[in-house]
């Protein structure tokens, strides 16, 4: 009966064929569905492509803009250290030599530039002072520092490599062009002609700039002399504080929560608290640092110690979460075995579980440190920006307590300044920061690969 009712009437057969009974022939509906499928898949591919494209754009921007900071333009000059200008009494008394300010050195440099230009036979309408302006304002200070260091060289002619002014540097790096200097008071077309001639004579050259990596920040007028070194030390001291505080406290807290804590409301509160702290905006930790450490406890502001304390509080949840995960990964059989041979609960944790979880803890700590290293917002509030971090700290306590900057804060500081020459420094600073972060993350990955045990 059922067969009968299902068997199609003979007239319907061609109609069904039209609907596409064959698997090889797609109906419109199937086509639509397949098209929707392809579209949907394409959306996914496009989404991932956009994400990866952004990464590529970001990385290429950073490198194309920042690599220039690692090269710097220098001008080589023979400078005659005239005795009657630098040491009038001629007795090489250091105190008297120190009395000559950088203004006293300016004419000497001016003469040296003029001498070089005439020696090379370059024709220029510029006066010697304008010629000397292609040098950095730092040049006189460099010269003075050298003379104070080597008073016996007074009277001799010494060859120096001076920093060129940032516009000249920009001209050689194609950041500054002859069209863009129209309203620029710092440089003129004639000076650029002179620069071209000096480049042709190999007097001006671009070389690797170690002082960008190791040097200190410089004032607004001397972007060519600014470097990351001192702020790197600031970051280093902060990371030391974070490591010394966050690692033991974080590990201790995780051990308690994972191994000993009874299941009660207090433990619940602590756990909820930690997961929420991990999501509190970093600037809130900055407010905490300002209110508690600086305003209430009167710790010195801008000090890496305070920065380190704030970052410790910020990093703790990260370290606790990863430490708990790696403690949890140690199988209970290890604990049972330890307890079985007579160890106390505490001994089983400290002698057996903790060493087995150590690689995981270390990985989590490194990742937490990398996070803290790149954090900027809280540092703004505790005053690690807005001044020139010029002196490298001499001792550990000075490094912890005297005002300093930190790498991300230094980058922010440069990005805020008006002179576009600082932007190149900021991008360059980011390259250095990223090198540190990549190194730390790679280390974490290697540690995980090398030591992680699967049970």
């Amino acid at each position, binding site marked *: 009966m059922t067969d009968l009712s299902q068997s199609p009437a003979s007239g319907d057969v061609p109609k069904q064929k039209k609907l596409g009974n064959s698997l090889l022939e797609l109906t419109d509906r199937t086509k639509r569905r397949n098209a929707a499928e392809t579209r949907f898949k394409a959306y996914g591919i496009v*989404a*991932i492509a956009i*994400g*990866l494209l952004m*990464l590529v754009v970001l990385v290429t921007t950073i490198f194309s803009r920042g690599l220039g900071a690692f090269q710097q333009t220098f001008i080589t000059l023979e400078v005659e250290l005239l005795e009657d200008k630098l040491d009038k009494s001629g007795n090489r008394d250091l105190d008297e030599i120190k009395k000559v300010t950088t203004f006293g050195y300016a004419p000497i440099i001016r003469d040296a530039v003029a001498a070089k230009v005439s020696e090379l036979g370059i024709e220029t309408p510029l006066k010697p002072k304008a010629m000397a302006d292609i040098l950095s304002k730092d040049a006189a200070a460099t010269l003075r520092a050298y003379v104070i260091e080597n008073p016996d060289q007074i009277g001799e002619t010494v060859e120096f490599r001076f920093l060129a002014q940032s516009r000249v540097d920009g001209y050689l790096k194609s950041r500054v062009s002859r069209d863009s200097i129209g309203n620029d008071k710092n440089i003129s077309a004639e000076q650029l002609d002179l620069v071209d001639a000096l480049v042709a004579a190999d007097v001006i050259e671009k070389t690797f700039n170690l002082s960008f990596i190791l040097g200190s920040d410089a004032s607004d007028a001397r972007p060519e002399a600014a470097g990351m070194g001192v702020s790197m030390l600031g970051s280093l001291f902060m990371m030391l504080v974070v490591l010394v505080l966050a690692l033991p406290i974080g590990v*201790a807290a995780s051990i308690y929560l994972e191994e000993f804590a009874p299941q009660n409301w207090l433990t619940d509160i602590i756990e909820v608290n930690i997961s929420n702290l991990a999501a509190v905006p970093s600037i809130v930790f900055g407010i905490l640092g300002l209110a508690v450490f600086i305003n209430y406890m009167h710790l010195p502001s801008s000090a890496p110690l305070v920065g380190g304390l704030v970052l410790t509080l910020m990093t703790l949840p990260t370290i606790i979460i990863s430490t708990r995960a790696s403690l949890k990964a140690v199988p209970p059989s290890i604990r049972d075995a330890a307890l079985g041979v007579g160890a*106390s609960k505490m001994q089983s944790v400290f002698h057996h579980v903790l060493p087995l979880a150590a690689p995981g803890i270390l990985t989590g700590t490194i990742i937490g440190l990398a996070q803290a290293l790149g954090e900027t917002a809280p540092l703004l509030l505790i005053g690690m920006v807005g001044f020139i971090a010029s002196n490298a700290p001499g001792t550990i*306590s000075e490094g912890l307590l005297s005002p300093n900057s930190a790498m991300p804060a230094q980058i922010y500081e440069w*990005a805020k300044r008006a002179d576009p020459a600082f932007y190149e420094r900021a991008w360059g600073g980011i390259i250095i920061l990223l090198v540190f972060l990549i190194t730390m993350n790679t280390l974490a990955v290697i540690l995980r690969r090398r030591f992680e045990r699967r049970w």
Partner: protein
Amino acid sequence: MPTFWLVLVLIALSVAGFFLGRNRALVSANGNPKDLHSLPSYYGHNVALSALVPALVILGAWLLLQPILIESRVSSLIPDDVITEGTTRGLVMSDVRRVAEGLDLAVAQGAMTSDQASSVRTEFSDVRGRLGEIGVALGSDVRPEVLRAAQSYRTMNATGTLVMTVIVALAALGGFAWSYGRTHRDFRARNVVEQGIMALLILAASLAILTTIGIVLSMVFETRNFFALHPWTDFFFGSSWAPNFRGDSDLSILPLLWGTLYVSVIALLVAVPIGLFAAIYLSEYASATTRAFAKPLLEILAGIPTIVYGLFALLTVGPALVKFFGQGENGILGVEWMSGATSVLTAGLVMGIMLIPFVSSLSDDIINAVPQAMRDGSLGLGATKSETVRQVVVPAALPGIVGAVLLAASRAIGETMIVVMGAGAIAKFSGNPLEAMTTITTRIVSQLTGDTDFASPETLVAFALGLTLFVLTLGLNVLALYIVRKYREQYD
């Protein structure tokens, strides 16, 4: 740095305690460790911990409490008539501290002897000038009351530090002597040490709570001070933000909240579709190799510090947008819609890029948690893969995805560097995404950097803003975690 040295001495004492305690235990057992109740090192640890921990606790508590006590004592020394119109006790106290620091510096540099520093009188000597010579600049002449308060501040600080050193040293020696005296072969050293360590572990775990309490208290106190100086109705319901350091500012959160939400919405409009589609593709379509390659690469975006994004917004995206929408001969579209590089769109776009991996990896986890049986059922009924995803997988994962989006939103609201560098500084209600607007976090930074005066509403407003931000993000997080957890339970 006497505290530093004190801590070093304590550590040295405790290291010595370890060896002495262990030795004494061994001697009491005639050198045979088997006769001891615990392993020898436990006796050492016992002495070391008893010497170190109580002393450090006292030191920490003292360092926390001494400033409050001295502050209140000195503050009560200042007669009321010194606090004239236009100043507050807090301002006078900061003068006192500054003078005291100046005197300290003068003694340290040898410009004054310590006797001079505590006996100098404004009536006979130009204190301001003398402090100016050593580089401590004072705003106004030092009043005799302030100087006297500063001097007693110095004396109290010095006495306090001295007493602290003595008490801490006594505590350390006492702990050392007590535990050393108890060290004997029958002493249950391991149990005592383990109890001590347990206490330390609990202390470390409760630090998380302390941090939260610290955050809340520090902000609540200053917010209360702020509302004492500024009407709360204006803060919550006013319509303009115009801080004015001569007083009489308009400090309303609403324009800032508008800017914050505007930037966050744009960021989510960028991040959620891209992140979600990326997650769907990675978990449903991609081959294992593509996944292993694309997922970590996308997650790099989340590991890049926000200062990098900020710089990217300020120097790359902003100028690019200006080139597009900006004015004059440089504009590609030839329209004049955008004047500067900072705008809501600049910050929103860049923040969106930052949030892509955030949305994608959270959603990826959640989509992966949807049971395979549900997919198989749908595919078995003849649905295509995309139909399965749209009609089965995504609805099943929806609560989790909503949670992920909420987490991303909380990140966007609390993000600082990108908006500080990319969004601008003008507080206004405007619908135009190409205009510069300001956000809560940007204003917190600008009100609290530079010279801050904790007695003016213009500074204190930052704490009220911070508290609002904290409550807002905390609320979003708790909600998101609740949803995610609830959803996980559904399939576990």
